[in-house]
């Protein structure tokens, strides 16, 4: 799975996710990536989110929307909301991660696996790329 979230000069947020799914999957199984609110979500009032991991847990927990809702209704910051939803997934036995970018340009990249291919670029062009914990 791959994904991106961005904030443009007009203050608009966007999110996109694309995936090949799970090896050896059967019966037309679909994960969270194409499910709006589960693996992909964007709302100018809060945050843009793209998820990766064990899709069934992200769908059941509506992870991408839940992160936005925790920011909107509980006033959490993007990092705290990101940790909260990844913890929920882990508690239920799922694993994976997500990337999130809020309307002020704060970002979070939480995950509960050994690693996640991830990167970010600041508004003045500085690039950070990571793989391991």
């Amino acid at each position, binding site marked *: *799975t*791959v*994904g*991106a979230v*961005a*904030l*443009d*000069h007009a203050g*608009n*947020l*966007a*999110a*996109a996710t*694309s*995936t*090949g*799914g799970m090896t*050896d*999957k*059967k019966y*037309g199984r679909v994960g969270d*990536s*194409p*499910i*709006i609110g589960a*693996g*992909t*979500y*964007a*709302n*100018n009032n809060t945050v*843009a989110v*793209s998820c*990766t*991991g064990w899709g069934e847990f992200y769908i059941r927990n509506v992870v991408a929307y839940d992160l936005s809702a925790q920011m909107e209704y509980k006033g959490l910051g993007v990092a705290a909301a990101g940790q909260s939803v990844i913890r929920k997934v882990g508690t239920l036995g799922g694993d*994976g*991660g997500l*990337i999130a*970018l809020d*309307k*002020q340009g704060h970002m979070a*990249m939480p*995950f509960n*696996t*050994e*690693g*996640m*291919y*991830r*990167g*970010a*670029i*600041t*508004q003045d*062009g*500085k*690039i950070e*790329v990571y*793989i*391991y914990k």
Partner: protein
Amino acid sequence: KRYAMVIHGGAGTILQKNMTPEKEAAYKAALTLALQTGYNLLKSGHSSLDAVEAAVKMLEDNPLFNAGKGSVFTHDGRNEMDAAIMNGKTLQAGAVAGVTNIKNPVSAARAVMEKSEHVLLTGPGAEQFAKEAGLEIVDPAYFRTEERWKQLQEALHDDSIKATQAHALNDKLGIRNRDYKFG
């Protein structure tokens, strides 16, 4: 710090001991290029939608990642891909699922968002819509990589071992789970 863009290439059992320096460098170069591509669009006044679509397309085209070229295989040896995109300003969204011949599924998702009244299209219908929307259609063989094919063979081999064990166990217990689902 204020960020303009964040990307990911998937999470999982990614251990440094299993990674060669060359492969690690290739992953980091791919992520860096995707970030720079999206950022350049933002700096030249393009929308965040354009930026995320461009970055994801680059990662779909790179066989290192499980999306587009380099996608994993289903049980019956096909590549079935999914994608979604969402506009934070209008809350419009587009998605495709279970597609096998669209070169860039994320662009198909954007076409669904901008050229249809729907949000999610699946399978042959989504492929028909993408073709009519003018997206690049490729032979499914385009998505294949030897590494993913080997991963499927290993999974099928594991399945057969587990199946035997499960059947033996279930036979002893007197129950047979016809299609032995494994988590």
